[in-house]
Structures are given as structure tokens and as C-alpha cells.
């Protein structure tokens, strides 16, 4: 009974993303048939590498865009739609396999997912007026001390205590985490990734490093289909790259999952700190680039 239910749940969770793939097959069969081998190879390669990095918390949009331009097999105008639609399935897959392999308090997860959705849908009009670059500088600057604090906690150095082992949060910590997840969900509307800040929030509030993964992956998984709908409606995506990204992405996610779940906690937290520092660098360099170009 238990095993049957577990299999059923796996199928149901995986099935939540299948509708998007079916949409592609239903509406764009011509694009699928006319695709060249180079396009397929580019789509799969980008999907595997970018979603491997995504699973580690580095995000996938920046490396994907870089590789698409490098391989030169896709029109620039189709890149945003291809990324949004193609990444939806691996992100849902990520959320599922991490949820199924890491112990995390269900109620805590529910609250965090609801907050991410409320942030993204409820505060979209407010955050679009915020100064993007200032937020980038602020977040980028905050990430550095956060990473250093986590490193100190991990090595037992300084007055910061030790790393948390909680599978969920309660009381004031839950309120703080929920409030911040509303903010991270809202910032997704102006192009900020949710992974790194959500990961930092959970870690600093004492959540076990492994248990952070289903929190930020699930938060992203519930928001991504919203972005995909408009691109599907307007057919603004490249079919072989979208399918390649979706399928190759799952392979990349699987490889990264094996790596993350096999790492000892000490090294996993060090990896998370590297990701936070990398995110800080990408935020500040993007802000500098826009500042030079005169974009606020």
C-alpha cells in the first residue's frame, strides 16, 4: 500500500508539468519536424549544463543565454520564451525529487509556497516601480556577509553558533521566513532569482542545508508556469531548444541531485556559500553593466 501510494504520488507530482510539453506537441509540430541535428544538440547540451547549475542554486537563465549565443542556433527573440517554457519541467522535476529525498516539514513548505505565490501575484505592480539596480547592489552586498557567516557557522569559527538542522520553522522564525519569501517571490517579477536569497534566509534561520532545497525549488516551480503561458499563447519559443531544454534539463537535474544528496553536510554548506558569493558577483556586475549603459 505504502509503495503503491508513493509511486502514485511520484506520477502525480511529475504529471503537473506534462501539460506544458503536451502544449508544445499540440501547437508546434511543424517546428519539431523541421528541426536540425545541430539545434537538438544545442538544446540538449544547454538543458543539461544549465539545469545542473540551476539545481546547485546558481540559476539557469544566465548560463543558458550565454550558451545559446555561443552556439548561435536560436533567434534572440525566442530566447526568453524558450527559457521560461523549457525550464518549467526541470524545475518541477527538481522540486519533486528533492521533496522526495529530503525530510522537510510539510506545513512549513505549504506556507513558503503560498508566500512566494502571493509575492509574485500580489506585489507585481509595486515591485515594477522599484529601482532595479539599487536592489541588485543591496542584495549583492548582503550576500557576501551572509556567505561568510554561513562559512563561520560551518567551521565553528566566531560567535555565530553552529549550522541549523531543523526540517521546518515555527514562531517568529517562520514569520520572518514567510515575509521574506513574499519579497523574493515579488522580486522574481523584475528578474531576480529566488534561489539564492531564499536559500540564505532558510539557512540563517536554522533550517538544515538539505531541507532548504525543496523550499526554494518548490517556490520557483509554482511560479514558473505563470510566466510560460504568455509565451505559449504567442508561440514565441523555439521548439527543439524548448524540448531539448525540458528533457536535457531533467538529466542535468538528476546528475546534480546525485551530487547534492551524496555530499557530506559540511561540503554541501560550503557549496551553498560559493553559490551565494557567485550570486553576489552576478548581481553586482549586472548592476554595474546597466549603470554604465545608463539604465536605472
Amino acid at each position: 500500500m505504502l509503495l503503491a501510494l508513493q509511486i502514485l504520488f511520484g506520477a502525480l507530482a511529475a504529471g503537473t508539468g506534462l501539460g506544458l510539453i503536451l502544449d508544445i506537441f499540440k501547437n508546434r509540430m511543424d517546428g519539431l519536424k523541421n528541426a536540425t541535428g545541430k539545434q537538438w544538440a544545442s538544446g540538449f547540451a544547454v538543458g543539461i549544463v544549465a539545469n545542473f547549475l540551476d539545481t546547485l542554486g546558481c540559476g539557469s537563465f544566465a548560463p543558458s543565454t550565454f550558451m545559446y549565443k555561443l552556439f548561435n542556433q536560436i533567434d534572440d527573440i525566442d530566447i526568453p520564451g524558450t527559457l521560461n517554457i523549457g525550464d518549467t519541467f526541470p524545475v518541477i522535476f527538481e522540486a519533486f525529487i528533492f521533496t522526495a529525498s529530503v525530510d522537510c516539514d510539510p506545513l512549513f513548505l505549504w506556507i513558503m509556497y503560498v508566500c512566494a505565490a502571493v509575492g509574485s501575484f500580489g506585489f507585481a505592480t509595486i515591485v515594477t516601480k522599484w529601482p532595479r539596480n539599487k536592489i541588485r547592489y543591496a542584495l549583492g552586498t548582503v550576500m557576501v556577509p551572509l556567505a561568510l557567516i554561513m562559512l563561520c557557522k560551518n567551521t565553528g569559527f566566531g560567535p555565530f553558533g553552529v549550522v541549523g538542522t531543523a526540517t521546518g520553522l515555527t514562531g517568529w522564525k517562520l514569520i520572518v521566513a514567510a515575509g521574506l519569501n513574499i519579497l523574493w517571490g515579488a522580486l522574481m517579477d523584475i528578474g531576480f532569482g529566488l534561489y539564492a536569497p531564499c536559500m540564505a534566509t532558510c539557512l540563517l534561520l536554522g533550517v538544515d542545508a538539505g531541507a532548504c532545497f525543496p523550499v526554494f525549488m518548490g517556490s520557483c516551480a509554482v511560479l514558473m508556469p505563470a510566466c510560460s503561458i504568455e509565451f505559449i499563447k504567442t508561440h514565441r519559443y523555439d521548439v527543439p531548444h524548448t524540448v531539448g531544454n525540458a528533457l536535457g534539463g531533467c538529466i542535468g537535474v538528476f546528475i546534480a541531485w546525485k551530487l547534492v544528496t551524496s555530499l557530506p553536510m559540511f561540503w554541501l554548506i560550503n557549496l551553498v556559500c560559493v553559490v551565494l558569493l557567485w550570486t553576489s558577483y552576478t548581481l553586482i556586475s549586472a548592476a554595474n553593466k546597466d549603470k554604465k549603459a545608463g539604465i536605472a
Partner: protein
Amino acid sequence: MFINEYIMDRRRYDKWATPKFWKLPIFYVYCLIFVAGVFGWIYFKRVGAPARWQTIGAFLTFVAVYRGIFFRWMHADKTFRVTRANYFGGKNWTCKVIVGEKNISLYINGKVNNKVEWKDIQKLEEAKSYFKLSTAEGVEGVMLDKACFTEGDAESFRQWMLAHHPKISHEPIAPMFDK
């Protein structure tokens, strides 16, 4: 010939863009997922299965409630608010539809926005409170509020359509949008 003028506000946009979720077939799939999720959540807890399996039950219940009930409304509402903020300075906008012999002219806040040729109109869909003149793709359409005719009225518009555009099929709108 016929003029239809209305203010596009949040309520009207949500009403036209969001289907009644309980009339969508997929809603019943989400109901099943919800029941399975709740059952699994409780069952896994009772048999002492690892917390991760309870979590998947919780994940499924969330997906079912969020996607089955709230998602379409939240998405439409967000689209309206972002459009209003980005293009209309945070204010509702006035839509004026002039249905003429040659074409249909659309005005937004008094300025010409678009002209739709009759050859592009595939069907006239009728709901309780509005008409939708659907284009070829079926995604876009010209919306006319039955209560907002400033020249002509809903009944005379229906009769005129039947007499002047018999090739455009006249049919009731899908039940989930019949508001």
C-alpha cells in the same frame, strides 16, 4: 452603426478573462489530486513513513488548490494590474468600440487603437452580459458589454449581425465564460 463604450476596470477584466474554475474539466482532475494529496499526507503520517512522503502529499494539495482554483484568476488579475500600471499610469482605461459596415474600430482613452476587418471575425459568441467577436486564432476578440451600448442596443445588435453577417456563426460562449 453601433457604439459600445465602457471603462476597463479590474472587476470587468477579471470577469471577462477568468473562467469559472468549477466549469473547467481540469478542475476535477485537480480535485482528485487534492483528495489523493490529503489522504497521502494523513496516511503517511499514520504509518510512520518518512516526512518526505508527507511533504509530497502537502506539495500535491498545494498544487491542486493553487492551480485548480486560484491560478487563472491570479494570473488575469496580475496581467490587468501590470498593464494598468505600465501603460495607463495606474488608472482604468476607457474602451470604445464602433461597429461599422466596413470594419470595427477600437478606441482606448479616445485614441484609435486598432481596426478589425469583418473578414477576420470568425464567430459571434454570446454570454449573459456580453458579446465576443472572436478572431481567427480564437484567442483575441472584440468585447462588447450588453449594458454599455451608447448607440443601438444588445437585441438590435444581435439582429443586425444575423442579417448583415450571416456567415459569421452565432453561438453561446463556452460555459466557463458565460457570465
